[in-house]
């Protein structure tokens, strides 16, 4: 066994640490306060190659391992969760379907700019009324005019509405409803396409600098070349390409836990009560030790899932476990860290409050933790 990062991964981590510290940390609080996606930072990340992290060099990326991606996320997410969330949405679900299902000419046209970091990627899966079961989506694409006509509505879509967005790749049902078996396809819709509109930026409890919107498709026509892969693909086959998203949220979660641990630790060493730094009180020490321990366990599990993906082995169960464990740890740790801070931690402007608010989505996004439980139970043979 070897828990060390490879040299290339270490270099990447170093790069991200520097960028996070110099570029992200100084502006993160303001972007959160302004509820604005700082695309200038994402463009800068693109220039460093960070937007093509998981994409091979052939298509403009840097062909990094999943392990390296997790390591990079640890640095980015430690500085700011919103920017990390935008970055990971771009890097995973925003780009990978194009890599997996695209033809070479599609990759050249749409994937390369994503990987080179000139535009921001988005993927449209969730719908307002579909609940957490992707099978329930109502958006449909039907054959028409030598292409496809798309109608429907998507919700909670990240990265589609910024000044750096090119459009969206979305999932739609392609059967006519009469078939026994539902089929699904995904389609590239560029931003100025007729009939494609979107709502205002949603205002969240956390992730406030992330651009998230509802997207509306009203008789949107796209040519065949904007269909990605086989329109008769089953859903599971398709969704499996998104499983790395769970690793990504797990990585985001561990970066948050590390951030709140660092903040709580620093505060506890500085804050004095009853004449001593509160870090000397056993109750505080135990809390900090517990957070550090659960963090280290979550981290090891997350890297394990990433390793499995890199090794080309099945990682569905482990990715679900990593997501479940790391997000639950993050939400709990953020709450404990606020508790350690006392009143100051409850102020909206405090960094710990920002991370606390950001922590809430981790247990719900990218498949609720209820879903992760079911995925794991199924893998156990239940």
């Amino acid at each position: 066994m070897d828990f060390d990062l490879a040299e290339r991964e270490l270099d990447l981590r170093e790069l991200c640490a520097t960028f996070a510290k110099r570029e992200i940390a100084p502006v993160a609080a303001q972007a959160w306060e302004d509820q604005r996606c700082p695309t200038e930072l994402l463009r800068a990340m693109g220039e460093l190659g960070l937007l093509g992290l998981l994409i091979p060099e052939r298509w403009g990326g840097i062909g990094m391992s999943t392990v390296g991606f997790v390591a990079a996320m640890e640095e980015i997410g430690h500085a700011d969760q919103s920017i990390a969330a935008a970055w990971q949405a771009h890097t995973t679900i925003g780009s990978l379907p194009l890599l997996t299902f695209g033809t070479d000419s599609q990759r050249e046209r749409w994937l390369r700019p994503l990987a080179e970091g000139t535009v921001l990627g988005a993927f449209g899966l969730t719908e307002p009324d579909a609940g957490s079961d992707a099978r329930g989506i109502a958006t449909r694409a039907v054959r028409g005019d030598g292409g496809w006509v798309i109608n429907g509505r998507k919700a909670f879509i990240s990265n589609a509405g910024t000044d750096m967005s090119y459009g969206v790749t979305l999932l739609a049902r392609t059967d006519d409803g009469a078939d026994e078996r539902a089929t699904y396809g995904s389609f590239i819709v560029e931003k100025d396409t007729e009939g494609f509109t979107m709502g205002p930026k949603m205002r969240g409890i956390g992730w406030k600098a992330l651009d998230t919107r509802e997207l509306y498709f009203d008789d949107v026509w796209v040519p065949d070349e904007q269909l990605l892969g086989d329109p008769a693909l089953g859903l599971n086959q398709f969704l499996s390409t998104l499983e790395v998203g769970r690793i990504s949220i797990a990585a985001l979660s561990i970066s948050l836990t590390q951030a709140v641990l660092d903040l709580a630790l620093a505060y506890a060493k500085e804050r004095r009560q009853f004449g001593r730094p509160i870090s000397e009180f056993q109750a505080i020490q135990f809390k900090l030790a517990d957070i550090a321990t659960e963090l280290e366990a979550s981290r090891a599990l997350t890297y394990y899932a990433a390793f499995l993906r890199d090794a080309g082995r099945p990682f569905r169960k482990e990715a679900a476990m990593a997501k479940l464990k790391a997000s639950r740890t993050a939400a709990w740790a953020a709450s404990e860290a606020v508790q350690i801070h006392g009143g100051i931690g409850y102020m909206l402007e405090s960094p710990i409050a920002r991370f606390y608010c950001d922590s809430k989505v981790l247990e719900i996004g990218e498949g609720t933790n209820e879903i992760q439980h079911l995925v794991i139970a199924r893998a156990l043979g239940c």
Partner: protein
Amino acid sequence: MSLQTHTIEDFRRDVRGWIDSNEVAELRELEHPRHRSLRLHLRFGAWIGDDDNPLHDAWKLWVERHQRDGYICPWWPTMAGGRGWDPIQQMVWTEELAAAGMPRVSRGLGEHLVGPAVFLHGNDEQRSRFLPPIIDGSDIYIQGFSEPDAGSDLANLRTTGVVDGDDLIITGQKVWTTVGLIGNRMFLLCRTNPQAPRHRGISFVLIDLVGDANIDVRPTRQMTGESEFTEEFLTEARAPLANVIGGLDNGWRVTMSTLGLERGGDATTAHLALAAQLGNVIEMARALGRSAEPVLRQEIIRSHIDIELMRFGGARVGGIIAAAINGDVAMQQEIERVASASKLTGAEVEQRIADLAIRVRGMEGLVRPDGDGYRTDQMQYELLWSRALTIQGGSAEIQRNILAERALGLPKDPAAV
């Protein structure tokens, strides 16, 4: 032979009758989420801003009817202008108002902290000077207890009070003051004898905020986006010595006994709000078709069980408070114990319910509503607000530690947080 008594039900019938005859139906509208901020102010005793609101007249009418029939601060002793209700009666009153959808007319901290401090520890002159303006709503009090270095460790307070002729000159900073912008007066603790041991040498003072008060009240913004709390800077602010309640340097005792009563009062009714919040979660689960999900049900019922137990605890505290208002010190300690238990459980249950609500609701629950300012909807507000519950007024850890000493006689160790 049975010890049961049915007079509670007689009382309940009377109360229900009064509410039926006097209710102002428009006020049911106050339950709407858009009035949350207003409701918060009303809970603290003031209708602030929003005077154009058509409900304002309805509210005034409802208050007048209370005043006419003596239903303001009804649990205060009759000598203080109340009806001398015991807490079981209060609980019935609160339950019946809730059942009718009518808001309770509260005089806020004036009713729950200043009033008891004055009628338990004040002299006759202070009673006649301070109590009537609380009842008639002209004095709205805010609380000046916590300081930057005196939160959980309240006795560590640094604000000084120096005697100067007939006045006390007060300088220091207060934080974590609930809705501090709505008050015209403040009750505060300051150190009037720096030589005395920590818990002695502290005085409990009432002071004016309006006019040339030398008190700067600054709003701060909390996680919820609201300014539930403010901070105050006092720079040689003056209060007459006649405003010191319970005598100079005796403020700690005054505070402990009245805080105990306040917590006791909260304990009698705390389950009602929790039950309502849990009810909302259940409604939400039903609406989303999730009410049959087994694991969700298990979590819902866990909270329900804690609320049920709190309900019974509330009734118990009720009995004790009645005795304590008559000045029984041993009873005050018993209230403190029981009320702490209820507060600690309640805070954690509330956090759990708020968290459950968000999980039941999914992504939708994380999107804040449109509108000006920093809006949150009710469940979001509860999620964020509930985070403060184990911090404010002494952290849960400190409170459990105090309980370990007082209720179980474990060795004293104030530093053993």
